[in-house]
């Protein structure tokens, strides 16, 4: 009885898993077909021969390498500044009692209640006003403060043993030594979860960068891909489109395959993608 159920579960899961995997596998195969071969049914999986022509053509039609560099700068800048600002704020909230601390913490948490996508229009005006339209700094700036990071790190700091913190104070640690030598090294898993969710969220973000950029010199991968799909000369060249999609997708995907556990923990802690 139990074995039969197990076999049934295996078959159901195999069917569902295959169905879910099909779109990406199909696009992956399509990208490797010779560009001049029409896609009749079946040709995608069993065409005449493999070819990288779609990739080279996609790379020649749009500056994907530039998009990569832009995306890397964007997510790197966000993560670096967020990491510092959130650590400082979390340290203050976890280590000190000060008049107004609860109010300030609540104000910061408001950021988690209002998704930034909804505030796209006024934030666009702010970025223009600051003269940062069509710059990577302009894409990154609204995310330099992170309520989620502050919240997560504060939780982690609060769970440190009291004795450890007291010992550091008795040893005469300055506040920055306390933070660097005691608090941060003991918050490793929270930091990793925060970093991964921040990276993958901003790597995938599309609408905000679309709105505040207009040139290829600053445009990230996501906005670049959508522009590519809408280029007149692309039309219905699915092999080419698939290759472009793979160029945008595969590196992050490879990172995910390698660091699956950490990714999953990051997602779980944040509820952000």
């Amino acid at each position: 009885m139990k074995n039969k159920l197990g076999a049934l579960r295996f078959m159901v899961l195999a069917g569902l898993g295959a169905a879910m995997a099909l779109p990406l596998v199909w696009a992956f195969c399509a990208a490797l077909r010779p560009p001049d071969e029409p896609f009749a049914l079946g040709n995608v999986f069993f065409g005449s021969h493999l070819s990288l022509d779609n990739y080279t053509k996609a790379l020649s039609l749009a500056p994907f390498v530039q998009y990569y560099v832009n995306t890397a700068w964007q997510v790197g800048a966000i993560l670096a500044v967020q990491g510092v600002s959130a650590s400082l704020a979390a340290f203050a909230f976890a280590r000190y009692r000060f008049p107004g601390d609860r109010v300030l913490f609540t104000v910061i948490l408001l950021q988690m209640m209002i998704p930034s996508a909804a505030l796209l229009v006024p934030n666009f005006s702010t970025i223009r006003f600051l003269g940062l339209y069509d710059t990577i700094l302009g894409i990154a700036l609204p995310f330099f403060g992170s309520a989620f990071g502050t919240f997560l790190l504060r939780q982690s700091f609060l769970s440190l043993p009291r004795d450890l913190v007291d010992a550091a104070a008795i040893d005469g640690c300055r506040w920055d030594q306390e933070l660097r030598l005691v608090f941060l090294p003991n918050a490793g898993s929270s930091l990793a979860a925060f970093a991964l969710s921040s990276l993958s969220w901003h790597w995938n973000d599309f609408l905000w960068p679309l709105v505040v950029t207009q040139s290829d010199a600053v445009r990230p991968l996501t906005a670049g891909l959508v522009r590519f799909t809408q280029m007149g000369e692309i039309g219905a060249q699915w092999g080419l489109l698939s290759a472009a999609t793979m160029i945008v997708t595969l590196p992050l995907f490879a990172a995910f395959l390698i660091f699956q556990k950490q990714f999953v923990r990051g997602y779980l802690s944040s509820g952000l993608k």
Partner: protein
Amino acid sequence: MRKPRLLPYLLVAPTLVFVVVFTLLPLGEALVGSLFKQRLNIPKFQDPVFYGLGNFADLFGDGDFLQVLANTGVYVLVLVPLSLLAALVLAFLVEDKLKGLGVFRLALFHPTVLPMVSAATVWMFFFTPDYGLWNQGLHLFGYAGPQNWAGNPGLALGALVVVAFWKNVGFFMLFFLAGLQGLDRSVVEAARLDGANGLRMTWSIVLPLIRRQTVFVTSIAFIGAFQTVDHVFVLTQGGPSGLSSLLLYHLWQVRFERLNVGQGDAVTVLLVAVLLAFTVTNFLWGESREK
């Protein structure tokens, strides 16, 4: 040790400044801006003129906008329950030990990692008439309807639901799975010995025990459905004739295509109000039941 007086404020300041400038001020800005008429493409209205609640009146008197609201309502109310239910079932399926489980979980979960624009581009190809595998697959089940989902008035919104479902179901599964794995085995066993099984066990024992995860994942599912419209840009651009436009996509069109600044602010106010209603309700619900 002398208590530092100023230090905590200085440490909090950077985060606070960015939150104020990019979350609180924009809210105020949108509220005020929504009361003014300003249209950048009409010379007479280049500069803002006080318009009272006119922008809101215009919106609710506009058939296009009402269509967008209806689309968004249908989209959210179909997508969210459907993907949560499927995610729960999948979580049960992948919970116990089984050969190949790692691969199955990966197959179900991998779309989460992709950017939505990549997912939508892949699906654009998947939906293609004639040789797109979506239609081929449906044919196997006897489907003989229209081929081009993304371009069909009756199906474009459905195409968006399909893509978002595919992208998110594994993500939601993860939260249910975490809940199931944290269950106290002895409680479940005791219930089983008392004769509870199958549906009854799920409904009256397991679900209440993973209530926290359920509340959390429900709220992120709702919020996510409102704040992600990347697939609209790739697949349908809101068409045909506005039948697949969603609120946030409409907001983008109003502000950046029609250059109607005042109305853009008004839509922003409405969108924030809807989202706040969800997050605050969820927050209060979570808090009250915790105690």
